[in-house]
C-alpha cells in the first residue's frame, strides 16, 4: 500500500473518531427522537446550555439553547425575557402536560443546575413540539440576602432609635417574670396548706356535682320533662280562675283562688 493511502486511512480513522465523539457528546443525533419546548423565564438561576432536563427525577433531555428575547410578552401580557429551548425524549413527552410546572433545581456535590418538569394531570392537554410555556422562576438567593441585610439594618436602626424604651420594656418584662415567678411560688405554697387543700377538694367536689347536675339537665329525660312542663303551661295559660277552681274541685282539692 502506498504511503498516501496509509495517510488517507489514518485521516479517515481520525474523522470517524471525531464523529463518534460528537455522537457520544450528543452534538450529532442522527437517530434523535426528541421533541422541543420553549420555556420562558425571567431568571434562569445558573442554568446552562447542555444542562439536564428531568421529569420526575429521570433525565429525559437537555437544554439546547438559551436566548435573550427582550421584547417577548406572554398571553397574560407579562414580559418574559429569556427563552430556554429544551429537548425532551418522546418517551417522557406524554407525561408533560399543559399544567406541568417547569422548575430550575440544584443537584449534586457541585450544585449542578437542571430543569425539573413536574408531571401534569392526564386531564390536561399535551404540548405540541416547539410550544412555549412559562417556567417557574427560581428564588433569587442574592435578592433574599440583600433583603435580609436591609431588614437587619432596619432592626438595628429601630433598636438604636428606641434604645431607652426597649431597655425599659425589657426591664418591665424582667420584673413581670419575677412577679409571675413569685406568684407561682405562692400558689405552690398555698396548695400545700391543709385548709386550702380542703377548700380545693370541696371546690372540686362542688364542681363535680354541678357537672353531674348540668349533665342530667342535658339528658333525654330532662328534655322530655321540659317538653311536658311546656305543654302543661300551654294548656294552663287559657284557663281562668273559675275553671281552675272547678278543675281542683273535681280533683277533690280545696283551694282558695283569688284573682
Amino acid at each position: 500500500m502506498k504511503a498516501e493511502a496509509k495517510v488517507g486511512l489514518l485521516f479517515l480513522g481520525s474523522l470517524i473518531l471525531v464523529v463518534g465523539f460528537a455522537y457520544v457528546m450528543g452534538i450529532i443525533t442522527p437517530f434523535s427522537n426528541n421533541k422541543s419546548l420553549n420555556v420562558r423565564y425571567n431568571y434562569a438561576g445558573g442554568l446552562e446550555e447542555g444542562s439536564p432536563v428531568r421529569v420526575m427525577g429521570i433525565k429525559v433531555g437537555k437544554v439546547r439553547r438559551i436566548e435573550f428575547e427582550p421584547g417577548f410578552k406572554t398571553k397574560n401580557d407579562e414580559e418574559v425575557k429569556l427563552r430556554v429551548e429544551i429537548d425532551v425524549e418522546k418517551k417522557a413527552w406524554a407525561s408533560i402536560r399543559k399544567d406541568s410546572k417547569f422548575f430550575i433545581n440544584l443537584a449534586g456535590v457541585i450544585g449542578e443546575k437542571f430543569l425539573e418538569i413536574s408531571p401534569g394531570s392526564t386531564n390536561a392537554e399535551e404540548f405540541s413540539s416547539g410550544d412555549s410555556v412559562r417556567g417557574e422562576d427560581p428564588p433569587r438567593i442574592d435578592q433574599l440576602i440583600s433583603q435580609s441585610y436591609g431588614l437587619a439594618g432596619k432592626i438595628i436602626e429601630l433598636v438604636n432609635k428606641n434604645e431607652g424604651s426597649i431597655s425599659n420594656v425589657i426591664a418591665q418584662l424582667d420584673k413581670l417574670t419575677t412577679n409571675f415567678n413569685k406568684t407561682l411560688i405562692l400558689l405552690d405554697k398555698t396548695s400545700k396548706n391543709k385548709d386550702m387543700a380542703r377548700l380545693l377538694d370541696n371546690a372540686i367536689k362542688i364542681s363535680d356535682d354541678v357537672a353531674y347536675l348540668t349533665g342530667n339537665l342535658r339528658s333525654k329525660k330532662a328534655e322530655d320533662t321540659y317538653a311536658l312542663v311546656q305543654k302543661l303551661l300551654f294548656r294552663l295559660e287559657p284557663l281562668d280562675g273559675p275553671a281552675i277552681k272547678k278543675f281542683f274541685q273535681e280533683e277533690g282539692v280545696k283551694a282558695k283562688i283569688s284573682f
Partner: protein
Amino acid sequence: MFEHFVSFTEMTTHAIFSAFRPPVRIKESFQQLYFVANQSLIIIVFCVCFAAMVTILESSFHMRLVVQNDSMVPGFAAMLILRELGAVVTALLLTSRVGAGIAAEVGLMQTTEQIDALKMLGIDPVQYLVLPRLFACIFGGMILTIVADLVCIYSAMLVSDMYLGFSPAMFISGMRRFVHFKDLIFSVIKGASFGVVIPLVSCHFGFRCKSGAEGVGLATTNSVVTSSIVIIIIDFVLSYLFTHF
C-alpha cells in the same frame, strides 16, 4: 540568542511566502506526513494510554483524599485529557521522535553541503525541506492529537471501569457534565500549533548545524530542547486564551 531569533524569523517568513509559490511538493509532503503521523501512531497511542491511566488513577486518589468522594473524576479526567494531556504529550513525543529526526536529517544535509547543492540546482531549500515537513507536522499533529485524545479517554474509561467502579455509561455521563465538543477543537488547535513549532525549530537548528558528528548531535539536542520549551510556552498561552471561551 538574538541572532537565533532573527534567523528563525527570517526562515519562518521565507517559508510562509514560499508556501504560496509553485512548485507544490505534494508527494514529499505526503511522505513526510506518513513519517510524522502513521509511523508515530503506535508509540503515541501506547504512551498516551499510560498517561491517561495515571491521570485518572491519580485524580481519583487525590479526590478521595481531599473531598472523600471521586464521583466527578471521570468528568475532570476527561476534561484534563482533552484540554491538556492529549495534545501536549503527543507534541512532546513528536518533538523527540520527528523533531530530532528532522534536525539530524537537515543538519547532516547542511554538513555534507547538500543544501548548498540544492541552491546550486536552483531549488529553494526552505521550500524543498521545510514546507513539506511543516505541512506534515501541522496535519500530523492534528490527526495524532485527535487519535491520542480519544484513545486516552477510552483507556481512562477502561481503567475507571476496572479499578474505580465507574461503568462506561457512568463515565460518559460524568464526562458529558464537564466536557464539550469545543474542548476537542481546542485540543486540535493546540496540536496544529505545536505542529508548526516542531519542524520550524528543528529545521532552524538543522540549517545552522556545524560540521561533524558533534555538530549534528548538538543541533538535534538543541532542537528537541527548544521545541519542548516553546511547546510548553505556547500551551500556556493557548490554555489561557481558551479559558475565555
